[in-house]
C-alpha cells in the first residue's frame, strides 16, 4: 500500500517535475510572480530537513557545536530564515545561519542552500561540495542544477525532490520518512 502510494507519488512527482521544468523554462527569472509565502515556507523547511538526515559524526563535531545552515548567493529569505531557526534544535544542536557569496569545501556548512550567482553558479557550488558531508539544497526556481534536495512547487505548495544517490555520495543518510514525502526520489546506487 505504502509502496504503491509512493510509486503513485513518484509518478505524479515526475509529471509535476516535467511540468515545472517546462514552466521554469518558459518563465526563467520570473521570481516576482511567486507567491509571497513560498520563501518563508522554504526557510522553515531548511532546518527541518536536519531532523531526517544523518551526518557522519565527524562532520558535526562536538555536541555543543551548532549546526550551520548556509545560504550561498543572494538571500531570498531575509529575516524569515533567522526567525525560523530561532530556538530550534536539530539532534540537540542549536542552529546557526551563515550567508556567503560563494562556498568552499571547508566552509563548515551542514545544510547548504545554493542559489547560484555570477560569482559561483549552482553547479559550481555543487561541484565544490561534492563528496563532502553537506546537505545541499537547490531550488527549481534557480535552474536545473540539483543538490540532494531540490525544491519544487506543486499545486501551489512547496515540495521537494531527493537525490539519494547524491546524499550517499556526500556520506549522508536520508530518512525513509523524508523520502516518502519527496515528489521524486533518485535512488542511491546498489
Amino acid at each position: 500500500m505504502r509502496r504503491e502510494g509512493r510509486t503513485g507519488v513518484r509518478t505524479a512527482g515526475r509529471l509535476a517535475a516535467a511540468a515545472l521544468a517546462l514552466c521554469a523554462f518558459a518563465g526563467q527569472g520570473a521570481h516576482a510572480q511567486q507567491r509571497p509565502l513560498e520563501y518563508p515556507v522554504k526557510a522553515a523547511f531548511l532546518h527541518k530537513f536536519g531532523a531526517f538526515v544523518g551526518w557522519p559524526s565527524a562532520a558535526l563535531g562536538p555536541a555543543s557545536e551548532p549546526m550551520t545552515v548556509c545560504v550561498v548567493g543572494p538571500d531570498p529569505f531575509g529575516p524569515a530564515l533567522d526567525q525560523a531557526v530561532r530556538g530550534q534544535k536539530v539532534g540537540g544542536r542549536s542552529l546557526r545561519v551563515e550567508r556567503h557569496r560563494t562556498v568552499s569545501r571547508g566552509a563548515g556548512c551542514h545544510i547548504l542552500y545554493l542559489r547560484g550567482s555570477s560569482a559561483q553558479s549552482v553547479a559550481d557550488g555543487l561541484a565544490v561540495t561534492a563528496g563532502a558531508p553537506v546537505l545541499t539544497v537547490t531550488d527549481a526556481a534557480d535552474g536545473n542544477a540539483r543538490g540532494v534536495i531540490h525544491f519544487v512547487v506543486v499545486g501551489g505548495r512547496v515540495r521537494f525532490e531527493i537525490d539519494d544517490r547524491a546524499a550517499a555520495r556526500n556520506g549522508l543518510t536520508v530518512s525513509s520518512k523524508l523520502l516518502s514525502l519527496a515528489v521524486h526520489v533518485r535512488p542511491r546506487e546498489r
Partner: protein
Amino acid sequence: MAPWSRMPEHWRTRLPLLLVTALVATWCVIAGLSERGHQRQRLREVVTQAEILAESVGAALVFDDREAARTALSALRANPEIESAGVYDASSALAASFAIEGQAPPNVAGALPTPGAARGRVAAVAPVTVDGERVGTVYLRSRPEPFWALAGRLSGLVVLLVMGSLLLAVIGRANAALRTRAEDLDEANRRLTQEMAEREKAEDALRQSQKMEAVGRLTGGIAHDFNNLLMVASSGLDLLDRTKDPVRREKLKNGIRQAVDRGASLTRQMLAFSRRAPLKPEVVDLTARLEGVRVLLERGLGENVGVELNIPEGVWPVEIDPGQLDVALLNIAVNARDAMPRGGRVTVTAENRPIGADGLDVEHVRLAVADEGEGIAPELLHKVFEPFFTTKGVGKGTGLGLSQVYGFARSSAGDVRIESEPGVGTTVSLLLPRTRKPLPVATAAPAVPLPRARGRILLVEDDDNVAALVQELMAELGYEVERAPEAESGLKKLERADRYEMVFSDMVMPGRMDGMALARTIAERWPDLPVLLTTGYSEAAAAALAEGFRVLPKPYRLEALAAELAAAREGRARPDPEQHAAPAA
C-alpha cells in the same frame, strides 16, 4: 445424600436457588473481569495503532504535507477495527482525517477529541514527535464492538452458566420428584394401613357372625339339653325330700351335682364361644381341647346323633385360635347332623401326618369329622367352601358355615379337604401344621384343702336368692358377711364403718350405680380396700378386667370363690383374664 436429608426442609427448598444465584454472581464477576481485560487489550491495541500512525505522519506534519498524512491515514482502511482517525498539527488544527462511511470525522473545531472508551468505542491519542519535539497529535477511535463479537467471547461462559443452571435445575427437580414420591408413598401407606384396619374389622365382624350363626343353629339342641338337665335336677330334688336313706340321698345329690356341672360347663362353652375376641393363635393340645368341645357337640347335635371322639395320645400340638377351632368343629358337626335327618354317628379322629401327605409340605395333624349322611353331589363338592353356598332350604342355613371352616384352616397356615360319597357319608378334614413351640404351662389348680378364712366381707348383690346362697358359701369359708342390695346402700355401709376387709359385688345391678362404678368409687376413696367383682356376662367381665379389676365369672364353685377371695385379700396380681373366660375342661 445423608446430610441432604438431615437438612431442614426450608433449606432444601432454597439451596438450589441459592446455588443458582451464587453461580450467576460468580459468572458475572468472571465475565466482568474477562470483559475488562478484553477492553484493556483493545485499548492497548488502539494505542499501539495510534503510536504507529504518529510515527508515520511525523515528517508529513513537519513538512505540512497533508496528502502524505492522508495517505498514511488511508492505510487504516485496511483495519476494520478503526472507525475514525485524525492527525493534528502542533497548534491542534486538524491536518488530515479519516472516517469510515457513515461516521463523522474527528472533531475539526480545534479542540482535540478526548481519548477513552465510550459506547463500545475505544479512542486513543498519541503525540507525534520528530527529533524529540512534539509536532502534532494523532487521534484514533475504534469501531463499536459488534454484538456478535461480545456474544462470541462470552458464549463459552454462557454455556458454562447454562449448563450449571441446568444441572441445578435437574437436581432441584429430582429432589422435588423424590419428595413428591415419598409423600405419595406415605399417603399410599396410610391408605393401605387404613384399608387393612377396615378389612380386619370386617373380618372380625364376619367371624363373629359366623360364630353367632353356629350358636343359633345349636340353640334348639342346647335348650332341649338344658330342659333335660333341669329335669334331672328338679326330679332329683323332689326325690331328695322323700327319702331318708343316706346312700340313696348321696346318689341323688351326685346326680343333681352332675346335671348342674354339665349345665355350667355348657353355658361356659356357649359364652366363651360367643365372646367377641380377636384372632389369637396359641399352642393347643388337641386331645385336651377336643374333650372340652365334646359336651357342646354331644348336647348340640341332638339325641339321635352319636358323637365319637377318636383322639390318640401323642397327637402333635398345633398353633391355632382355639375359639375358632371350636366354631369350625361345630360348623362341620352341624352340617353332619343336618345331613343325617334320621340320625347317625359323627366320628372325630385326629392323626399325625408326615411331610407330603394330603398334598401339604409340612408335618401336620389331620383332624377329620366324618358322618354317615346322604353325601354331597360331586359337581357341588368344590363349591361348598364358598361363602353363602348352601344346599339347605331358605331359613335353614346361611352358607357361612363351611366358609368359616375354610377361613380358619387357611389362617392357621393349614388347609381343608372334603370327601363325599352320596349315600355313604362325608368327611371334612382340617389339616393343621404341627408346631414345635412348647405347650403353655398349665396354671396350678387352686389348693384343694380350704383353710378357714376370717374377716368381714361386704356383699353387694341385688338377687335375694343368689345373695342368700353366696352368704352361705362365704360363711362356710369362715367369713363374716354383710349384704347390701345395691351399690348405693353398700357405699353407705362403707362410709359408716371402716371395718370391712373386702367388698364382693355383683356387676349388673339395678339403680344408678352398677358394680363397676362401685368398684371405681372404692378404688378412689378407699384404695386399700380389696374389691372382687362377679358376673355371668362375659362382656361385663371383659370390661372390668380391662380396667384392672378382679373378676370371678358366674357360675363358680366354692373352691374358686375361696381362692379368689383369698387372692383378692392378699392383693395378688390379677390373673390372666383368659383363665376366667376359658371353658373348664
